[in-house]
């Protein structure tokens, strides 16, 4: 375990870039959760399940359209839409009636949906692994710092900031976004000025779900699509959102960066326990700044 040598080789840079592309996925999914948490005050345990549905749905779309670049791009749009629809049903059908309950109850309700959705995925798609191959357009690697980095990872590195900017525009520059932010701070007031807060909440939840689904669709070519994806992701997402500051978009980005990088570097430096590094980072952050690194809307 030659830590120093491992850490300062070019392998590190390549690992960092891989970590960053992973960060993209984490960021997309976490921003969705942060949005929901910030505006609706619901810690959405089902977020991981939505992510998983996104991945499986992407597989189905690609199968249906026969593979290739077009199928892939279509999947990137259709799968998140499907997940957004699921989110809409959940929000309108259940959550909207229970907002005045305590957080504990809402959290457990989202957990119950995580359980139900998990098994629904099992029913619809079965228990076997699925996989999606990267479309020919993205296959192969580019040479970065003298090491091969898959094109797909570069694509992810590109997409990440795009989504971030898009979200920033939606939240800060559109009327809808401004209303949602106001509703996060004071839902009653927003209702009192005649805006239907319910639809704001629905919109937010749907957008958050869309993001979860998008994350799932994007990661589909990189991993085995399997049951259990939801469980591993949800914990990471929660932690990212906590260290970044509840409801804070930039916090989700920061948290994702910290998480993605500590994980990649951790595995590089200490392969056996590398996966523990992000958790340690989380603990360290929370001990020093209990409310998260950036301001939260709570």
């Amino acid at each position: 375990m030659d830590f120093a040598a491992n850490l300062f080789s070019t392998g590190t840079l390549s690992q960092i870039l891989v970590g960053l592309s992973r960060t993209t996925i984490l960021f997309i999914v976490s921003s969705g959760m942060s949005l929901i948490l910030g505006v609706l005050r619901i810690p959405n345990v089902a977020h991981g399940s939505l992510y998983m549905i996104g991945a499986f749905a992407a597989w189905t779309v690609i199968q249906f359209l026969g593979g290739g670049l077009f199928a892939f791009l279509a999947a990137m749009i259709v799968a998140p839409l499907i997940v957004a629809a699921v989110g809409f049903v959940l929000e309108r059908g259940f959550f909207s009636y229970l907002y005045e309950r305590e957080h504990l109850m809402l959290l457990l309700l989202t957990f119950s949906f995580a359980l139900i959705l998990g098994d629904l995925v099992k029913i619809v798609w079965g228990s076997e692994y699925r996989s999606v191959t990267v479309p020919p357009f993205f296959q192969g690697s580019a040479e970065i710092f003298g090491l091969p980095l898959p094109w797909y990872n570069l694509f992810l590195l590109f997409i990440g900031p795009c989504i971030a900017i898009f979200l920033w525009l939606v939240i800060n520059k559109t009327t809808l976004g401004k209303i949602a932010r106001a509703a996060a701070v004071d839902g009653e007031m927003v209702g009192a000025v005649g805006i239907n807060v319910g639809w704001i909440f629905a919109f937010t939840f749907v957008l958050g779900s869309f993001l979860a689904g998008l994350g799932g669709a994007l990661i589909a070519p990189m991993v085995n699509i399997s049951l259990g994806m939801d469980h591993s992701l949800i914990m990471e997402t929660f932690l990212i959102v906590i260290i970044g500051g509840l409801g804070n978009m930039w916090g989700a980005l920061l948290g994702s960066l910290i998480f993605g990088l500590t994980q990649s570097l951790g595995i590089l430096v200490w392969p056996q326990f590398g996966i523990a590094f992000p958790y340690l980072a989380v603990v360290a952050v929370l001990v020093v700044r209990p409310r998260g690194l950036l301001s939260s809307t709570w």
Partner: protein
Amino acid sequence: MRRSAAPLLPLFLLVALLALPQVLPRFHTYIAAIVLLTALLATSLNLAIGYTGLYQFGHAVFYGIGAYGTALTLTRSGMPAPVAFLVGPLAAAALSLVMGVICIRLSKLYFGMLQISLGSLVWAVVYRWYSFTGGDDGIHGIPLPDAIASPKGSYYFTLIVTALCVFAMYRIVRSPFGKVIQGIRDNPVRAAAIGIDVRLHQLASLVLAGFFGGVAGSLFVVVENSVFPDMMFWTFSLEVLIMCLLGGMYTFFGPLVGASVIVLLRVFASVHTQYWSLILGTILTLVIIFLPDGVLGRFVRRPRSKEDAGA
């Protein structure tokens, strides 16, 4: 009516439980043992969540550490069994103290989330440390003293330990400490204003909850002869939480009822279907929507004075 019948009911139950292995087949005795230790686990969680009002989302880690502590002591150190049964719960209590000190400064939700994350850290370490903990395989074939190794023996051991621990927790809840933590749950500002060191009492409550959770883990070793990392996975933590909710978080026996229902349902469901999560999720949804006080909570309301009719 309830008051005079009350002491008889647990007694009757105890007698029934004692007689159980004599009449039921081996598998059922095994299930009954699992029910008992899970009931203990749920009750220990309720100490933290129902009685102290802390968002204890990561309780399974104490169960797991209690189990692993006992298992590792039995398999790796030369120490006799009684020591192993102390090591497990004490390790869980120690971990609870450490985690408590780290998390207690945070409020409500943050506390719960940080606890889950610390628990996940522990899980990740146990999962990866193949050489010491057996990694994702867990540890199997753990040697036990003859008296408690047989199905009947393990059952009676579990019954006795569970009964003692539940009784202890019952006393704790009815003690000054028990009232104080309930006061802290309902009104921490008021509690501080009357001189109660809120943090200290919360920590004590966490340590007790962790300790008894660890005992439940040790009992699992006796009944199952093995341990595995998923015992401390966060989904199990939430499952135990569901048991408390289902039975009634603000009653003492609620978690016992909830645990029994869930374990029995799980066993029954696993025979007939592979969609246990779906069933559990549906039950939880129904409980949250229709029975937020839990099964027992619905039927047991605090006895009130006749005077309040006019107040």
